[in-house]
């Protein structure tokens, strides 16, 4: 037990409430590589950085801080599985730790509900914990694979809010990063490169709700670039991007009359498949785009 790592598992909204397979997969796959994800009771929406940050940044700070305080009370670092959540929870935690004025303002509000932000925990995306050799590392990850995804070409969508703005984060190059490709290669799949890899999914900043056709047009550009290189699936580390790419393809078909049929899999779903989890255990039937063509190549 001693070399196991424990984290408070921050779920967010889209994973538990739209793609519960991601939640189930995250818990199981992490346990297989020595990470225990414990429930963070009473957590709320992160809250959505685009929706909330756009209308009142003070509400965004306070709401995100409340989620961090729940983990402080557990005396545990937070692990999460969504880039949007990462922006809210990691960034607010970081800002409050380094900006006394901001922290005092937030604590004044939190005092009304008997809470105080102390700045005692850190926030991690599960993907970076997998990549970190001190926690898991590529080798251990590859060792956990029982069903290699050999013969599949998998493209990576990094999303925006995990690594950008690069100046404030710790992930290095944000123009052409390769570390998630390494995570994909560890599962036996062939990571493929494509044009404009770092382009946004189109959904963020409230744009999906504000102007769906505009958001979908950005998504569609990604689909064109992915088809060029013959990807069998797109993997990401953000359920909101997943929603945009997965359900978005149906909406693209309705609005633009183009059909792509590209399976979209969160990295934890992909890892689940590689660790031998069945499509049922991952609730892949909830995906709008049929994952079957991808499954045929590996099952």
């Amino acid at each position, binding site marked *: 037990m001693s070399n196991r790592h424990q984290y408070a598992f921050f779920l967010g909204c889209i994973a538990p409430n739209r793609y519960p397979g991601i939640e189930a997969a995250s818990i199981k796959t992490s346990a297989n590589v020595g990470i225990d994800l414990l429930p963070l009771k009473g957590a709320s929406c992160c809250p959505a950085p685009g929706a909330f940050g756009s*209308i009142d940044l003070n509400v965004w700070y306070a709401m995100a801080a409340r989620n961090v305080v729940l983990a402080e009370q557990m005396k545990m670092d937070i692990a999460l599985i969504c880039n949007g959540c990462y922006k809210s929870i990691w960034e607010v935690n970081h800002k409050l730790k380094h900006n006394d004025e901001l922290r005092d303002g937030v604590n004044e509000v939190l005092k009304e509900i008997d809470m105080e932000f102390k700045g005692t925990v850190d926030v991690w995306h599960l993907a970076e914990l997998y990549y970190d050799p001190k926690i898991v590392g590529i080798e251990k990850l590859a060792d956990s694979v029982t069903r290699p995804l050999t013969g599949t070409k998998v493209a990576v969508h990094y999303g925006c809010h995990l690594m950008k*703005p690069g100046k404030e984060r710790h992930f290095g190059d944000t123009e052409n990063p390769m570390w998630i490709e390494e995570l994909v290669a560890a599962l036996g799949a062939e990571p493929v490169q494509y044009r404009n890899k770092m382009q946004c999914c189109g959904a963020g900043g409230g744009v999906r709700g504000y102007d769906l056709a505009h958001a979908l047009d950005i998504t569609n550009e990604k689909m064109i670039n992915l088809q060029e290189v013959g990807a069998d699936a797109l993997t990401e580390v953000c359920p909101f991007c997943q929603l945009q790419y997965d359900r978005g393809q149906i909406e693209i078909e309705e609005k633009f009359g183009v059909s792509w049929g590209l399976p979209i899999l969160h990295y934890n779903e992909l890892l689940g498949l590689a660790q031998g989890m069945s499509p049922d255990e991952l609730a892949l039937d909830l995906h709008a785009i049929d994952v079957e063509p991808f499954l045929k190549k590996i099952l």
Partner: protein
Amino acid sequence: MAVKKDYKDQKLAEKLRDRKYYIPDSNPGFIKEVEKIGQTPAHMCYQCGTCTGSCPSAPRSSYRIRLFMRKAVLGLEEEVLTDPDLWLCTTCYSCTDRCPRDLAPTDTIMAMRNLAFKRDIVPRNFLKTAQLIYQTGHGVPNNDANRAARLKLGLEADPETTHKHPEYLPGIRRILDHYKLKENADRILAEGE
């Protein structure tokens, strides 16, 4: 000896002596407000256009981040806050990553959106998300089909969030009420009916 440059027309000279672009309804204080909320010195922008060139929204709309940066500096508050394009930024931070002046145009946009909201200028979808969080703690709440799917996976019907622990909701509502977010969202949505 240097001669102070001036114009014969005294009125024009007075206008142009003002180092800010002069139009009657420009607000020189606007950029200060924007910088305070956005926490980035937007007036340092030298208009190179790297931001617009990096922007996924630019090729498919009239949204131009460089234009917004300039208008903010010029204090064109009314024009900026009432422009529907203000809400087409996906907050992807590509412009921020590439800005040679190390500015954060994305955060400048966010600041201007915050100021627009203070004047009740805001797309409905943002307010609806706020209402959902007030009611459930989630921007995207659970539903019955998803509960059934969760049970099949061996998960509990409701996740360990405010869904399973609604006793945490009053605290969340207290925070939102502190900023009158729900009140304002309800009011603005009702006025739009």
